[in-house]
Every structure is written in C-alpha cells, then in structure tokens.
C-alpha cells in the first residue's frame, strides 16, 4: 500500500512528460506533413502547367495553316478546284461547286 502511494506521483509525472512529448511530436509531424504537402503541391502545379503547355503546343502543331501547308508540300495535295467540291442538298442531290 505504501509502495503504491509512493509510485503514484512518479506515474503522474511520467504521464505528463509523455503527453508533452507526444504533443510536441504531433506538432512536428503536422509541420513535416505540411512541408511535404507544399513540396507535392508545387510538383502538381508544375505538372498542371506542363500539361497546359503541351496542350497549347499540340494546338500549335494542329493549326489549320500548318496542316494545309503540310498537305501541299509533303503530300502533294492541291486546293480543291471548282467542280471537285460536291455539296449534298437536303434532298440527297449532289451538286458540284
């Protein structure tokens, strides 16, 4: 009984100290995670921006003027002349343009 009385303050102090250490640990962990979030957020932003840039690059490559030029120079295609364009009317009649 006497021994139990003697150990109680010690346990209380240990609990207080451990709780404080735990609180500090939690705080540090939150901080560490926030740095990690910051790091990966920046990475995400970079990737998003890169994706956006690639989309614009694709749009530049696919621009009508470039495709037309490619068709004429590399595929030896020509502008459609009068008579080569066929227009379908609502009555499914094809007329040349």
């Amino acid at each position: 009984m006497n021994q139990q009385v003697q150990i109680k303050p010690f346990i209380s102090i240990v609990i207080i100290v451990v709780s404080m250490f735990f609180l500090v640990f939690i705080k540090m962990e939150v901080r560490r995670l926030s740095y990690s979030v910051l790091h990966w957020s920046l990475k995400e932003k970079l990737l998003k921006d890169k994706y956006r840039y690639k989309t614009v690059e694709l749009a530049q490559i696919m621009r009508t003027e470039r495709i037309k030029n490619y068709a004429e120079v590399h595929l030896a295609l020509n502008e459609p002349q009068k008579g080569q364009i066929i227009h379908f009317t609502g009555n499914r009649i094809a007329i040349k343009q």
Partner: protein
Amino acid sequence: MRLRIHLIFTVFFLIWVFLLVRSAYIQLAPNARLEKVVKKQYLSNLSINSRRGTISDRNGEELAVSTTSFSLYADPSLISDPYIVASHLAPLLDLNRISLKKKLKSQKRFVWVKRQLNFSEKEKIDSLKIQGIGFVEDSRRIYPNGHLLSTVLGLVGQEGEGLEGIELFYNEELKGQPLKVSLPKDARGRPLTLPHEILVTNPQGHNIELTIDKNLQFVMEQELLTAIKKLNADGAWGVILNPKTSEVLAMASLPQGDANNAVDRGNPRKFRNRVLTDIYEPGSTLKPILVAGGLAQKVLTAKKMYNCEKGRFKVTNRWIKEADRHHVFENLTVSDILAHSSNIGSAKIALEMGAKKYLGVLNDFGFGQKTGIDFRGESSGLINPLPWVPHLLSNMGFGHGIAVTALQVANAYSAIANGGVLHQPFIVRAIRSADGQEIFKSVPKELRRVLSVKDAQEMNLMLTAVTAPGKTGELGRVMGYPVAGKTGTAQKVNQNSRGYQANAYISSFAGYLPANDPRLVIYVAVDNPQKNYYASTVAAPVFARIAANAMRIMNVAPSHFNEEDLMPQRAPHFGTVPSVAKKFQIATNIEKGIMPNLKGLTLREVYRQIEGIDINVSLQGRGVVQSTFPRPGESIKEYKSIHVTLGFDEKDSK
C-alpha cells in the same frame, strides 16, 4: 536593520509587480502597433499572379491562351567564370555570347538574362547546374494559330498588359487580379499551413468568347492572301457579318503579323485592323446605298429611267465619265444603273435627291459615324459638311468624295440583307469567369430601321441582278446560291496632297448570300492590285471563293441549280478519273504482287489502292501519276518500296 530589509524587499516586490503588470498589459491588452510588428515577424505575404484569360472563337477554339513561362535572371557576383557560363547559355537561349558575357560581368546583383522561356528551355538550363542563375515564374501569351486573326486579337506586352486589338479593349477583363495571401512562415521563409488549392490553381482573368468563326476566318485569310500574291497587291482586307445581328464572323486585314514572333511584334503596322481603322473612297459599292435611300425617300423606283448621256456628262464645269470607256449607255433603269455600275446614272440620282436628303441617307446607314463595335481605334469615316457643290454631290453618288471604313459598308449591306434594320456590329459574344460563370452576354442591338421591308426586297432583287451573266458582278456568283452584291473600284486618295494617286486603286466587292435568305454579308477589298484593278475581275472572284467555302462550312444547302450542275465534271487539272473496272484491276494486281498501272491517278487514289499492303511509297512532284518504279506489270514482291512520279498532263495544265 529589519526595517531596511523590509524596505528593500518591498521595493523589489513593487518592481516585480510593476514588471508583471506591464508584461500582462503588453500580452493581453489589444495594441494595433504591436500586433503589426508581431505579424510582420512570422507572416509571409504571398502574391500569386493572375493568369490572363483565354480568348476563343464562337465554337470554343482557343485563339489566345496564357501558359507558365520562366524568366532567367543572374546574380553576377555569384558567377565565378562569366565566359564559361555565357558559352553554355548562349546557344541554348539563342543569344549572342559576347553580349551575354558582358551582362554576366556587370556590377549589379540582379540582371535579366532572358525572359519568357518555356519548359524545355528551363529543363535544359537546369541540367547545367550553373551557380548564380535562377528562374522567376512568369506568364506567357501564346497565339496557337499564329497569324490567324492577329489584327483582331492584337498582342500583349512583356508585362502582360494588352497593347492592341481585343487584348487592349478588354484588358481589364482579361488580366484579372493577383491573389494576395498572408500566411505564417518558418525560419527559412517557407509558408506554413498553406491551403493546397492556393498553390495549384492560379487566379485567372475572365475568358472571352468572340463571335468569330475560326474556319470562316481561315478561309477568308487564305483567299485574301492568294489574291495579294496573284495580283501583286499591297494588301487586302475583308469582313464577314451575320446580316440578322451584325455579329462579326470573320475579320481579316493582310499582311498581318504573328504575335508569337518577336520581330513582328516590333512592327505595329502588322497589327493594324484596316477593316476599322482605314478610311477610303468606297467607289461603286456605295451606289446601292444611294438607290436604297432613293427608294426610302420615294425619289425613284427600280424601273425609273435615267439618260446616261453616252458615257460623258457635264456637271457645272467638270465632266463625269463611266469607269470603263467602253461603257456607253443611253437610257438605263435604276436596276440597270446598278447592274452596269453607271457613274452618270448614279450622279443623276444623287443630283435629283439633293445634298440634304442624301446626307440623311448616308447618316441613316451609319456612314460618317463610328459603328460602335467593341474595338479600339475605329474610324468614323469622312463626309464633307453641307453645303455640297453639285460636282461633289454627283461624285458622292458613285462613292467618291466620301471616305468610309470597310465595316461601315458591310454593316450597311447587312441592313439591306436583313430587311432594312441597321444593327450595331459586335465582336465579343460572351465574357465568362474562370469557373465558367457568364458575366456578360452580347445581345444584338437594333439601331434603327433604314428601309421598309418592301424597299429592302426591291434592293435585294436589284443587287441580285448585278451578279447576273454579263453584268459587273458576274464573277461574284457562287454555284447553287443566288448572290446579291456590288463591285467597287476607287482610285486611292493622295495622302500627302490633293487629288489621287496615279494608277493606284482599291477594288472591292460587297455582297450577301443566299440572296433569298441571307446568311452572310461578305465584304472584300484589295489594295492597289498591280495586274488588274477592276473590281469585277479582282474582288468579285475573291468574294465568290470565300462565299462558296463559307456556304460549305456553314452547311447551307444550295437552293438553285440546273441539270448541268448535277452532271459529273472532269477536274480541271487532273487526268481521267479511272473507271470502276480499272480500280478492280489494280486491286487484283496488287493482291497478286504485280505492280498495277497507276498512271493518271491522283495521290489520294494511289494511297487508297495500296491501303493495307505492306509497302512504302516514295513520291516526287505534284499532280497525277506519270510513271512508277517498278513499272506496271513487274513484280513488287522483291521491293520494299515503290517510287511514284507525279506531274500534270500537258493538255490539262493549259
């Protein structure tokens, strides 16, 4: 002694009490100054630049976008060997090595090396791991379509502010506001407890949706470019309007610059939108406005006759002649005056109408005043104040002695096309916030009725007659669609002195189609064509090509055609289209591994025939197949590729 001890104790006790009270006051009582000092110590101000909004066409195709870019800076004091650094950086950045070395040897602590680098350039520089250089994140404006619509879109400066065109007019809407947040920072200045969304999404300006149709714009620019090359002209411009609303579907002014290109950006002339800014004498394209005014004022009817004086008419002491000396007309109806574009007939109508009434007509149709389009730099045109001498009045009847913009003419024709109502042209369809919320939506604005429906219908018939066979606008016809329009040839006014420039003309054509249910108003003008200057042979064919393509793009079914139009026609430049039997023979031969006879086929047909066969094709020339290797009938099994020589048949190229 005891008293002394008590006294000292009391004094020290009081001091401690004072210090405690004071510290409690500082800690607990609100104090704005101290709060500011504390916040400054641990708060970091983060400013995230706003990204400029996107400009897109009516179908959502992006025309101007902003992406992240990186500006490279250097701290010369940290660079140990400027020569080596310059040698490494100069080829990557396309800079002069010597001038870069000079920059890196400067005494300053901060110098820009190059601004607005893209991702791949940054990665290349990063891989060099050079000490003393760094990047600042920036925004870069990109125009994915290059030259397309550049005189309308305009451009932005290096700091991201609009300098020309839509970029300038809607700068406030596009640029947005930078996001400023205060966040606690750590000892190294890194933000703590950062909301994740702030970092990954840039604040953005509003997005603008134009009324422009990218496909129509492309067709118009290509045709104008072809006209400039073919006619050796100084420039060309044009505009396409929706006659029912006056919304701008295409607007081009060539030659034009590419806002992505630094050299072009330095030349403001390449971004001048001549459709709105340039004024010039419209010539005969103004005659329909005179006639429409005459109908509205009950001065004339379509069948009223005027004596055209066999090509020479004296007004006070000056002679008025027809544009072409072969045009010797006597009595012409008003409809014929338009169809033959008689200057004398128009002069007589103007004289009969009188200056005051004609000025009223011109003002009604929007001449001499800005159209009110949402674009900076619009010109209002030029009309002399009253009184007009008879000679000026007669000249104004056929479009001289008055200066207009292309947009004014197109808008006036829109009023005729839609049954007599003049609208305010507009180029922005909607403004949306970055999250898609609609902030502004354009509504067609009716300005006034300038013609009765009956008079507009009568004008429609008269203008359709202009494109009839043998009339001045014949080459402006588009197969399958009735076209109403008018040619205009005007001598260029001398900018530096009185009178006109010798042999310098602006040829134009204004018209709309289908005349029975107008969908488009198209105006084109060719500046100073060298090979020919009559609008009937210069501008009318350009109009026709644009109009034909536009009808196809807009899926407008042809409304009138004859039996001949339905007959299959031989392509003008190509050889005979092979028959079904020949195609069958080719397919059979290829399956057997024998080189078929491809002579006379187009490239497209060649590819169609060899589709699915594991063989490469090398090409030479343009046109239709002239010869092949291996030759027809030879085995193709031992060859990995076939060589096809293309060319034009002599008889076809004539």
